[in-house]
Every structure is written in C-alpha cells, then in structure tokens.
C-alpha cells in the first residue's frame, strides 16, 4: 500500500491532498459558523464530505484546463488556487470578494485560475462547458474542460443536449458527476429511471466509469487517466464519483430524509480521517506533520474570516457597474 501510494503520487503531493481536503472542510465549517452569525446570507451549500472529489479531480487536471461547477463550489475554487480570503469575502458580500460581492456563495469565478464559474441553475453549466471546450479547440489550445455537477442535474434537458453535442462535435469535455445520492431531499433512484448514473452515457457513445468519491487517490487516478484520454482523443469522457454530503442540502435543510444509519455508514468513510490514517500507516507523514498542516489550514481560514470581516462593503455605485463592457 505504502509502495502503491508513493508510486502513484509523489510524497509532497500526498501531503498537499491532505492539506487541500483539510482546508476545504475547515472552510466549510467556518462558513456554517459565519452563517449562523448572520455574516453570510442567502443560500449556502456546504461541501463537507465530498472533499476527495474536488481535490483528487483537480490534481488530475492541468492548471490550464477549465473547471466549471454548480453552486456547491467553494472547495473547487479554493483547491484550484482561489485565495480563501477573497472567497470568504465574497460570501460576506464584501467588495474584496472574488466577484466583488456580486456573486456570493453560488457564483465564484476566477478566470486567472481558469475557474470558469459556479452556476446556480441546475444543469446550466453543461452547455457553457461545451462552448468553452469548442473555443479551446478552435483556438488550438491544449486544454480540456472539466464540468462538475450533481446527481440531480442529470435529468435536465441540458445534460442530454450537451452530452450529445460534445460527442457529435468531438470536444474535449470531462464530465464529472458528484453523485452524493441526493438532489435536495430526493434520492437518486427517485429522480432517475436508471440510477446508475455513469451508465446513462450509453445513448451518446461516451465512455464512462464510476469511481469511489471518498477515496482521493482513486479519484485522482481516474481523473488523470480520463483527462489524458480526453486530451489525446479530443472527445468527451464521463466520470461518476460516488460520495456523500455530511450536511443538509443547504443551511436551511436539517436533512431528515436520511437515516442515521445511512449517515453513519458514510461517516465511517469520511475522506479526511481515512486519508490521514493511510498517510500515517504508510509512513508518509507523522502525526506532527499532519498537526502542522491542520494548524496552518485553520490559520488560513481564520485569516480569511478576519479579512472578510474587515473588508468594506461595495460602494452604492457598484450596482450599475459590470453590466456592460
């Protein structure tokens, strides 16, 4: 196992995975706190539990590759490199936020990182991802587009139209479904006739596979392999990562539709402690090293909160800015 891990990923990378997962979790939990305090408002969808997907997938992509996601995207933005301070400031609605406070939690965006947005309309990002991939090919860029979405999004018309289109035009899109088994309160088999989501690509001749989304290494390997396939072939590929959100859909949801037993099963598969255990068992890190990483993450998030608190509100005039060029 030790050998395997090290063979797959350099030691420093493994520690980075842990750090990224940890800061993602920490960030979300602090968001919940700030929401309770009234510093964050609106809809807030936390990613806790799904960290292995964002971290593994992002590591499997090139930095030039485009990433798009839905509204549960804080971790994806941060893992791609967004400054946690500016993400938190965005959530506070401050002018120093990633989108000047105009987007909020659901609409993070940073083109300097090729992070092409969080979208709040379920399924809205599919065609946009296809269009970005077309632009890359048209311009002769060596880049693919990774499009994240949830299990609930696969029944939108855009899913179908976009998968067909990506394959028809032979575009380099990597579709990554984060199947956390629920769209708000609706379990996947209650919204999808074929609940095994990766199988739904058969109607478009798009190759697909399922991966354990609680295992950061598995996600990393699958995405790395798939991304290279997409890059070489110029054609789409589809990954379903099975995972779980430990919290409700949003802060308004106590998630009573899930049993405690179900929750426990998944809690036992929490990617953070499990990956930490592996790192320790395999001798890749000592507890001290992990403690240092965790402390550093906590501090970063502390700073993010302070930064957000101290930042100014947008000027009134901002209302009229950024509509037209």
């Amino acid at each position, binding site marked *: 196992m030790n050998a395997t891990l090290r063979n797959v990923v350099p030691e420093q990378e493994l520690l980075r995975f842990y750090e990224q997962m940890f800061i993602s979790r920490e960030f979300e939990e602090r968001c919940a706190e700030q929401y309770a305090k009234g510093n964050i408002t609106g809809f807030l969808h936390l990613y806790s539990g799904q960290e292995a997907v964002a971290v593994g997938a992002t590591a499997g992509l090139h930095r030039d590759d485009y990433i798009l996601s839905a509204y549960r995207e804080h971790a994806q933005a941060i893992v791609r490199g967004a400054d946690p301070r500016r993400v938190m400031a965005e959530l506070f609605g401050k002018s120093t936020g990633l989108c000047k406070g105009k987007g909020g939690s659901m609409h993070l965006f940073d083109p300097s990182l090729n992070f092409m947005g969080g979208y*709040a309309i379920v399924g809205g990002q599919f065609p946009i991802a296809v269009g970005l991939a077309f632009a890359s090919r048209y311009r002769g860029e060596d880049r693919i587009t990774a499009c994240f979405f949830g299990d609930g999004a696969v029944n939108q018309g855009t899913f179908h139209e976009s998968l067909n289109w990506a394959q028809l035009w032979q575009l380099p899109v990597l579709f990554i479904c984060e199947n956390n088994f629920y769209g708000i309160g609706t379990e996947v088999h209650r*919204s999808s006739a074929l609940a095994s989501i990766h199988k739904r690509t058969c109607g478009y001749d798009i190759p697909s596979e399922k991966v354990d989304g609680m295992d950061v290494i598995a996600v990393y390997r699958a995405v790395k392999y798939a991304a290279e396939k997409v890059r070489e072939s110029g054609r789409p590929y589809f990954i379903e990562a099975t995972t779980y959100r430990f919290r409700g859909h949003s802060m308004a949801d106590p998630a009573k539709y899930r049993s405690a037993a179900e929750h426990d099963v998944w809690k036992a598969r929490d990617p953070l402690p499990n990956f930490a255990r592996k790192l320790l068992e395999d001798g890749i890190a000592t507890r001290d090293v992990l403690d240092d990483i965790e402390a550093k993450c906590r501090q970063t998030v502390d700073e993010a909160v302070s930064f957000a608190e101290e930042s100014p509100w947008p000027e009134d005039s901002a209302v009229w800015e950024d*509509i037209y060029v």
Partner: protein
Amino acid sequence: MSEMTYRDAINLALKEEMRRDPSVFVLGEDVSLYEGSFKVTRGLLAEFGEERVRDTPISENTIIGVSVGAAMGGLRPVAELMTVNFALLAMDQIINHMAKIRYMFGGQTFLPMTIRMPGGGGSQLGAQHSQSLETYFMHCPGMHILYPATPADAKGLLKSAIRSNDPVIFLEHELLYNCKGEVPDDPDYVIPIGTAEVKRSGDQITIVAYARMTVLALEVAKLLESEGISCEVVDLMSLAPLDTETILTSVRKTGRAVVVDECWSTCGLGAEITSRIYTHCFDILKAPVKRESGLDVPMPYSRHIEKLCIPQVDTIVRAVREVMSGSY
C-alpha cells in the same frame, strides 16, 4: 377567521381543494417527501398519498408539459416550480404550449391547471435566484396571473386558481411566507380572478402595488398619514386579467399616482399601468405619475447593494412625496 401565515394559508387552500376534488393533484421538485423547499406542501403526502402528491425529477420544462397533458386528460394539476427563476427553463411549455393550446386547437380542449412559483428578491440569492418575472407572464395572453399580498388573499386566490378552467400562474413572494394574517375558515372562500382591491382608502394619492410591494405600500401609507398625506393603496392581486377599472376609479378620485413594481423597470408592468392611467386619466391628473420599480440590473448578492435594487419603504415614501409636490 383564523390567524395564520401566508405559507399556511396556501397550504390550507391546497388541502381544501384536494379534499374537495379528487382530480386535483400536486407535483414538483421535492414537494412530496420533503414537503416543499419552502415547506408549503407540508402534510400533503401524509393526507393524500403518493399518487396525488408527486415528486419529480429536476426537469422544469417537463413538469409544465406533464401538467399540460394531465390537464388535457381531465385532471387538475397544481405544479410547483421551486422558484420562479426556473420558469425560464419552462417557457416553451408555458408560453408556446400552455397559453396557446386552447386557442390553436379551436377551443376543443381546456387546461384547468395551476403553476405555483415562489419569487421575488431581497434574500441575497444573487442574480440567478432573485428575479421578479411577473411581466413575462402578463405579456402573454392565454393564462391568468395571480400574486397575493396577504394570507387571506393567498387562500382565496389559490382556490380560485385551482377551480379555474383556464391555466393560472400563481406567484408567491418568498419574503411573505412568514407573514401572518386573519384568514376566512370557509372552505368555499374564493376571490374572483381579475379583481383588484383597495386595501386602504385615501384621497390624495393612489399607490398601485401588488404582493410584497402592497405590504410596503401599506406601511408607507401609514407612515405618511402622520404627515397628513392620505394615500389610497390599490392591491392588484390579479396581474392578468388586470382590473383597470379599480385602478382608474382610485386615480380619478385622488388625481395622483405612484405605481410600484418589484420587477425590472424597462417594459415592466409598471409601464403598462402607468400608460393606462395616463391614457384614461390624462385630463384629471394633478401631477405626473411616478413609477417606483426594480432597477434595471441583474440582482447583486451583497445585501448592501441588493437593497438598492428593490423598492423599499423609504424609496416609495420619496416617490409619493415627489408626486405630492409635483403639479401640472
């Protein structure tokens, strides 16, 4: 009369109509097991069972299309779109189909269906989740549009909607769900579609409003009373058909008007109402009519600028004062 929230009044109307007529059924995302993302359908699954209280996939256009088909097939669907913003995914079925089918098929069928949609801004939900799209529906013939301001109206109008043999769009304001009011217990309490109501009498200026804007207008009227400005508040309730007569009667009395709408200003419903007032009251107007509208911008997230985009008590007060001090 019982005191209850706007949410509970809607819930009660749903239950009463489902009890009354077995052809009424409810469908939408998370309306059944989850009892609605705004909890409006609470208790429905328990009372009426799975066949009549149906969760759907996240497929808005098909939610409406299925409702159209079910209505054509003899049922009375009450569809919920989780918020009005998602109606934009269903415009094909709403505008191209629902609103036209009776006409283009020469009156041989009818669609007794209702679409419920929470909407409105002011909750820091950002540009894609804060729209007020009432004008989009009003512009298209072939359906009725209702938008209540109070719990009692919510009950009475929703019951009319469900009993109507025409398609009805029933809008609910997200910020009104927790507002309380007295609601008639009568299970046949219905408010006729197409009637506006003078919610407060006054004789110096008319404020025309609807839904949450009516609530603000009533606050404004109360506030300004102490300054000696007597406002009459006309609550539209039905956006289509529009009860022009009630508006004009009020303006003919007061000679002044402010029209408040929450949607984007340009080509918003305030333009239509203002235009009707001018056309029919031109000779008796004592001052130009003023529109107090949502700003023509996508909604920003940050609450400090979001509030600048939606009419507020103080901006309406300002508008009323301006019209009061204006003259021809």
